[in-house]
Every structure is written in structure tokens, then in C-alpha cells.
């Protein structure tokens, strides 16, 4: 009952005309930028961040959430029509979605993706409403040592579930933590690692890091391997799936939604993992066993539902614990801090209008996505025809202006250039940027909690093992690492991530 009244309260906030407007603008802009090939959701959210600076915390977050799932959905459109996933979570959508487009069924593919995403989004909103409050209440009881261990666990879990080499990912987390420590130490007032630059006293900008690693670096890599694109823009036809399509997809959408909701909550989970898992499950258990990979509509419905559900439930650890499970959530935390709100479990009790307003707005956002996407598909397709040589200078412009407007400092623009060079080098060495961003956001918080824990325990590090909850987190982290490092598991993980 309490959840219901909270949701109604949130709905009251979210339905204020201003918030509805920002939710709409967010969904629209998110889809618009997300459709463009080669721009993922992280870059989209980072580039559009300046649009929210003038707003209060609640409308800003509502708009950013809209941008996020708009970008998510826009990526699917690109995946189906161009065979280039706009972002990694729609990689699997290209498998069957693009095949459908090749057979002249692009319309129903886009339609089922929208419908599946809508259903998944509605369910995921309920999941958040029911699971977030108890989690936040639990987290409020955490002492610094438990918080520290939780962050260690969160980072390890995020790394384990990410792509690529495990040990490199852990190293990237450490590098991220170190970069996060640049600037003024809140406790001693010492300005650390500033190389004599006064401007570095505030630390590196997280917007600069996100844009460098996910925006500029991506452009540079794309320019190196510019290739021909195949756009199926001419034959869309009706976007409405047939009754038969809907019947076939019903259970796929249900399974995708369930799987996505669960996987989204895990640290390191979210949209990417959810869509991969949903596709694999679907391939194994869907009946009759039609041919996946050759344009099976269930191969679109399941991962699309899952990635939307996962994208939304990944808000749970961000909202309740202040711990980002993926780079987009790291950006959300950064946006909260820009708004002057310390992320963590206290947000729910101290700013209920923000918390419940955001959750309720997800419903409204999902309705908007549905009404926005089905009729406007024609517009999105025309965007796809924009050649990359016109697109990438625009990305430069938005990144540069965006990075400047965070603090109105020219220095941040130069930071962007230096960080882009670093990001490029790391990417060439096959080091994934996502763990670095998570470490960057969590680094200062980890140091602070470690310091407090040590203060309370009089410098006794065994406190992390004698307090049961803390010990459980650390044990879980070690367990995960051991499980992944074991040869049998490693082979499985690689196989699963490859598919």
C-alpha cells in the first residue's frame, strides 16, 4: 500500500506540466541523438547534460532519464535499419532485426521493439518502486566499513561482467580511482596530483572524462575505419506487427522483461548483459525452434525488452546505494553532484519528490517513447541518411561546448583534449573505458569511507572482516574473482560474451 501511495505521490510530481515537458524533451532528444550511428547512450547523456544545468534537481534527473532510455531505443532503430548497433546493448538486435529489415519486415521489427520496450519499461518501473526502498533502508544502516566493502564488491562485480580481459579491467578501475583522487583532498585540504595547475584543484571533470572516452575517442576510432553503410530506409511499410507476431512474441517479451529486470540490478549489469542473456535464453527455449539469426521476430522482441528493463532497473543501485553499475549511471551520479545532491541512500528520505518523481516519470517516459517512435520512425530514418562526415564535426562541437559549460572554464576544454589522447591510447591497447569511469566516480567515496572506517576502528584493518555484512561483501567479491579466474568458468564467460 505504501508503495502505491508513494508512486501516486511521484506521479503527482512527474505529471506537473514542467516535468512532463522535460521528460518529453529528454525522450525526444535522446532518441534523436541515439539514432545517429556511432553515438552510444553514454556519449548522448554526456553531450546533452548541459541542457539540464538550468533546471532543478528533479526535472534535470527526469530529463536525463528520458535521454537515457530514448538513446537506448534510438540505438535499436539504428541496429535494425543499418546493421550498426548505435550502442553495445543493441548488438544482438542486429542479428535478427537486420535480417528482418533485409526481408522487407523492418516495420514490424521496429514495432515489436517499441512494444516490447514499453511493456518491459512498465514492469521495471514497478520493480524499482518495490525493491528500491527496502534496499535504501538497509543501506542507511551501513557503517563506513560496510560501505567500503560494498563499493569493492560493486566494482569487482562490474568488472567481472564486463567484456575483455579481467585483469586489465581491474587495472582500469585502479587507474580510474587514482584519476578520481586528483584535486583537493576534502580532509586535509591538500591539493593532490595537480602538476602545479591551479585549475586542477577541483579535480578532473567527470563530464570531460566521459566525453573523452566515449565521445571523442569513438569518433577518432570510427574515422580510422570508415566503411560503407547499408541503410534500409526505402521499405519500411507499416510498423504495426501482425496479430501472429504479437502472439509469437508474448512469452519472449515476458522472459526478456523478467531476465532484464533481474540482471539490471546487478552491479555491472544493465542493458548490455540483459540483452545478451535474453537472446541466448530465447535461442535455447523458444518453441517452435524457428531459425534465429535469419530474421526471427522473437530475436528482436526478447533482447529489446530485456535491455529496456535492464536499463531501468540499473537505476536501483544508483538511487539507493549511490553506486553506479555502469558508465551511464556514473554520469547520473555526476549529474546529481552537479545539482548539489550527495548520492546515497539518504536521497529517498531527504528528497522524496526527486526519488519518486523520477520513478513515476519512467512510466510517462515509456508512454512517450511509444507514441514518439511509432509515428516518427520516418523522421528517424531520414536522420540515418546523414553522412558521418557531417556528423562527427557536430559531435566535436557538442562535446566541446558541453565540457565548457559545466564550470565555464576554458581549462576543461584542454582537459578534454588530453583525456581523449589517453583514452585513444588505452583503447588501442584493448583496455575498456567503462571500469575506469566507475573507479573515477567511486574513488573519492572509497577513500573517505576507508578513512572513516579506520578512524572508528583505531587503524585496525580487520574491521572489514569482523563485521558480518562487510565480510560478506568482501567474500562475495573474492568468490566472484576466483570463480571467473577458474579455467572452466573463464571459457564459459568468453563463450557467452562472444556470442
Amino acid at each position: 500500500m505504501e508503495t502505491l501511495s508513494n508512486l501516486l505521490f511521484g506521479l503527482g510530481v512527474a505529471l506537473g506540466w514542467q516535468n512532463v515537458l522535460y521528460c518529453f524533451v529528454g525522450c525526444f532528444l535522446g532518441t534523436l541523438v541515439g539514432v545517429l550511428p556511432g553515438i552510444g547512450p553514454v556519449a548522448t547523456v554526456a553531450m546533452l547534460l548541459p541542457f539540464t544545468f538550468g533546471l532543478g534537481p528533479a526535472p534535470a534527473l527526469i530529463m536525463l532519464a528520458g535521454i537515457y532510455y530514448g538513446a537506448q531505443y534510438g540505438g535499436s532503430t539504428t541496429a535494425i535499419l543499418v546493421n550498426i548497433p548505435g550502442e553495445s546493448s543493441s548488438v544482438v538486435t542486429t542479428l535478427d532485426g537486420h535480417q528482418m529489415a533485409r526481408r522487407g519486415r523492418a516495420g514490424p521489427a521496429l514495432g515489436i521493439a517499441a512494444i516490447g520496450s514499453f511493456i518491459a519499461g512498465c514492469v521495471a518501473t514497478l520493480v524499482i518502486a518495490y525493491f528500491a526502498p527496502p534496499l535504501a533502508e538497509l543501506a542507511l544502516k551501513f557503517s563506513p566499513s560496510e560501505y567500503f566493502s560494498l563499493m569493492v564488491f560493486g566494482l569487482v562485480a562490474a568488472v567481472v561482467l564486463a567484456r575483455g580481459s579481467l585483469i586489465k579491467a581491474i587495472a582500469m578501475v585502479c587507474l580510474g580511482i587514482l584519476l578520481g583522487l586528483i584535486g583537493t583532498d576534502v580532509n586535509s585540504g591538500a591539493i593532490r596530483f595537480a602538476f602545479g595547475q591551479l585549475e586542477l584543484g577541483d579535480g578532473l571533470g567527470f563530464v570531460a572524462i566521459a566525453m573523452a572516452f566515449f565521445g571523442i575517442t569513438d569518433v577518432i576510432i570510427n574515422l580510422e575505419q570508415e566503411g560503407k553503410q547499408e541503410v534500409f530506409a526505402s521499405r519500411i511499410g507499416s510498423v504495426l506487427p501482425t496479430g501472429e507476431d504479437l502472439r509469437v512474441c508474448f512469452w519472449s517479451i515476458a522472459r526478456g522483461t523478467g531476465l532484464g529486470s533481474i540482471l539490471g540490478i546487478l552491479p555491472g549489469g544493465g542493458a548490455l548483459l540483459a540483452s545478451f542473456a535474453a537472446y541466448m535464453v530465447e535461442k535455447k527455449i523458444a518453441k517452435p525452434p524457428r531459425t534465429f539469426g535469419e530474421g526471427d521476430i522473437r530475436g528482436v522482441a526478447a533482447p529489446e525488452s530485456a535491455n529496456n528493463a535492464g536499463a531501468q532497473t540499473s537505476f536501483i543501485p544508483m538511487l539507493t546505494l549511490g553506486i553506479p553499475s555502469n558508465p551511464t549511471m556514473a554520469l547520473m551520479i555526476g549529474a546529481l553532484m552537479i545539482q548539489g545532491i550527495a548520492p546515497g541512500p539518504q536521497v529517498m528520505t531527504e528528497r522524496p519528490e526527486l526519488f519518486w518523481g523520477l520513478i513515476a516519470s519512467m512510466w510517462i517516459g515509456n508512454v512517450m517513447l511509444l507514441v514518439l517512435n511509432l509515428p516518427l520512425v520516418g523522421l528517424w530514418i531520414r536522420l540515418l541518411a546523414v553522412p558521418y562526415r557531417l556528423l562527427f564535426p557536430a559531435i566535436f562541437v557538442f562535446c566541446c561546448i558541453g565540457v565548457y559549460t559545466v564550470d565555464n572554464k576554458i581549462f576543461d576544454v584542454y582537459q578534454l583534449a588530453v583525456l581523449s589522447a589517453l583514452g585513444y591510447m588505452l583503447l588501442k591497447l584493448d583496455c575498456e573505458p567503462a571500469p575506469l569511469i566507475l573507479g573515477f566516480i567511486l574513488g573519492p567515496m572509497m577513500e573517505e569511507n576507508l578513512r572513516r572506517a579506520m578512524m572508528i576502528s583505531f587503524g585496525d584493518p580487520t574491521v572489514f572482516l569482523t563485521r558480518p555484512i562487510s565480510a560478506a561483501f568482501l567474500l562475495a567479491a573474492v568468490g566472484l574473482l576466483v570463480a571467473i579466474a577458474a579455467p572452466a568458468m573463464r571459457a564459459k564467460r568468453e563463450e557467452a560474451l562472444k556470442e
Partner: protein
Amino acid sequence: MKIRSPQDFWSGVVFIALALVFIVLAQQYRFGTMHRMGPALFPTLVGVLLAGLGAIIAARAFVLDGLPVPRFHARPLIVSLVAIVLFGLALQYLGLAAAVVVLVLTGAYAGREVRPIETLVLAAFLAVFSIAVFVWLLGLPLPVWPV
């Protein structure tokens, strides 16, 4: 000894180098004790961890087979970075309108083919668009014209 996985080897080297920078720089601050941690303690701890991981990654490259480091393409990288720096300089002295034009005109050369007229039109369009959206619509405090 032969490096069998250059990509891993060089990542390890980069990690070690960056870790050393942080460890060395950290030593100028107070270390403190575990009970009262100084500003040097945590960075040193993480730095040592990073250096250790880097060493393992680099050492592993002698045992496990892996990929070579992909070719660095100088042009897109350098042109993009130069364009961004020029944007910063132009924004400071000439204002947003000129900065966007400079950024687009320079940045376009990061791509393979440049069509001069098209690029000019794009630069003008983006300049007008940015001023309209960021300055007029959103009211962000950006200098539009030279000061």
C-alpha cells in the same frame, strides 16, 4: 625472451608508468597512520596495486599469445586534438561563434574526404545552431563575440 602479446605487454608498461607517477607524486603529502590516514596513504595503496597488476599483465605477455598493438593512425587523432585545443583558444579570445567555426573547419580534416563548401555551410549552421540553443534558449553564460 620474446614478447608474445605486444598489446598486453604495452598495456602493462603503461599501467606501471602511470602508477609510478601517482606513487612518486603522492610522497610529497603526509602519509599518516592507518588510524589517521593522511592524503598520501590511499593513492599510494592504489598505486602499488595498479603497478602490481601492470607487472602481472606485462609478465603474462611473455607466456600467453596475444594480439599486436593496432596501428595508430596519426591524422584523425592529431587533427581532432588540435581542433579541440583551437576551440578552447578561440572561445577565450574570439567568442563562441568563431570557436565553433574554427572547430568545424579544422576538425573536418580528421576525416578522409573534405568537401570545402559543404564544410563551410556546416560550420555556419552549427555556429548559428549552438548560439541559438545554448545561449538564447538555455541561457548558458557563453561569450558569443570577441571580448
